[in-house]
């Protein structure tokens, strides 16, 4: 009785030809993204590795370690195809069309033994389904990496410390203030205080969507740390609805200087530093 693994080893070239025929006759063929020669090289590589690693024993076990090289190649294909602009569905279809070629070969070999054919077909189907899932997983993992990198970048660029005046720093916070963000904010703020020997820092929270108790706690920490450095910290940009929410939550910010807008915070800072901003007297001298 010929077994599937054995059959495939003998018919490796037939499988490839069938698979290529299936792929090329598919209306979804993307010859605009990949030349037929490249497709053939890719397919040949996969068939080769699959057939050489397939044995009677591991046919039942899609999780077997023997398939490591196959999975590796699949992951590689998935990544390179994603870069070329294939949709995950197209990459999935690429693997699924292999299944059809395998079935066809198996069918020709085992036409007289329907029971075995059925059993082997099920196993192959399970195996190839698993392979196809791998391509999806790789695709998603690739996307997740991009998202994580962007998250990091956003955290980096969204905390600029601006020197608004000699001795006055402003730090507009935009987005949710979580523990990780607070750490970045605090680090860059304290560093900037040292570098510019500023005595006043303004934290502007106009861009923070919601101030809950955790955000408030982070703000209080930032203020305490700034004070330890010998600078005064003003929190500005408290909108009316946020003020009401803070009161209802029961957060006590009375020890902190808070202002409604950045402008009034700046005014307060000028006052503290005994600076005066005045309109020039008489007709404007400058032209």
């Amino acid at each position: 009785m010929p077994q599937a693994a054995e059959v495939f080893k003998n018919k490796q070239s037939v499988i490839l030809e069938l698979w290529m025929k299936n792929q090329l006759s598919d209306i979804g063929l993307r010859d605009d993204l990949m030349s037929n020669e490249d497709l053939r090289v890719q397919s040949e590589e996969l068939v080769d590795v699959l057939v050489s690693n397939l044995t009677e024993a591991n046919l039942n076990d899609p999780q077997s370690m023997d398939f490591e090289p196959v999975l590796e190649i699949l992951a590689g294909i998935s990544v390179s195809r994603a870069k070329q602009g294939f949709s995950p569905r197209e990459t999935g279809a690429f693997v699924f069309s292999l299944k059809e070629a395998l079935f066809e070969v198996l069918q020709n070999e085992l036409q007289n033994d329907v029971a075995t054919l059925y059993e082997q077909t099920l196993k192959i189907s399970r195996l190839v389904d698993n392979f196809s899932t791998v391509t999806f997983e790789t695709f998603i993992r690739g996307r997740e990496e991009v998202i994580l990198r962007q998250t990091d970048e956003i955290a980096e660029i969204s905390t600029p410390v601006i020197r608004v005046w000699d001795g006055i720093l402003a730090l507009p916070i935009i987005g949710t203030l979580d523990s990780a963000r607070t750490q970045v904010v605090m680090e860059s703020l304290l560093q900037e205080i040292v570098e510019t020997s500023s005595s006043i820092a303004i934290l502007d929270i106009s861009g923070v969507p919601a101030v809950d108790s955790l955000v408030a706690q982070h703000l209080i920490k930032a203020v305490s740390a700034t004070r330890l450095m010998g600078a005064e910290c003003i929190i500005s940009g408290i909108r009316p609805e946020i003020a009401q929410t803070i009161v209802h939550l029961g957060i006590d910010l009375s020890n902190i200087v808070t202002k409604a807008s950045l402008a009034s915070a700046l005014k307060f800072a000028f006052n503290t530093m005994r600076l005066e901003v005045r309109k020039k007297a008489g007709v404007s001298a400058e032209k």
Partner: protein
Amino acid sequence: MTILPLAKDILKVYKEQDVVLLRNRVKERAVKIKMGLVNQTKLITAASELVRNMLRYGGGGEVVVEVITRGRDNGVRLVFKDQGPGIPDIKKAMADGFSTGRSLGLGLPGTKRLVNEFDLKSEVGKGTTVTIIKWANG
């Protein structure tokens, strides 16, 4: 008067990033029923508090966002459900300034003050369910 649910969403929250999604969904619903800006902010802050608790102490869970109606009132009902360790002493957890996690200890009592209806059920070892309702003009 009976409360009737109109629209229902179920969101799973297991990481910090999911919080933003939830907040946006809650806001969307609140805007749809013409909730005022102050009440909107209160509701979103309450949701933010509870979802943080759920992530921190309950290991994440499920949030049901519902638009509800009671006679002429429209509102948003949020149900936070986790399978975490539960709260052994609810009375203590509802007191201002009590925290097992070195926070301000205002999350639960503060949330109660921000919403119209607040219900907390917890079973040690099984999990916690918090239900809040905020009426559009409540």
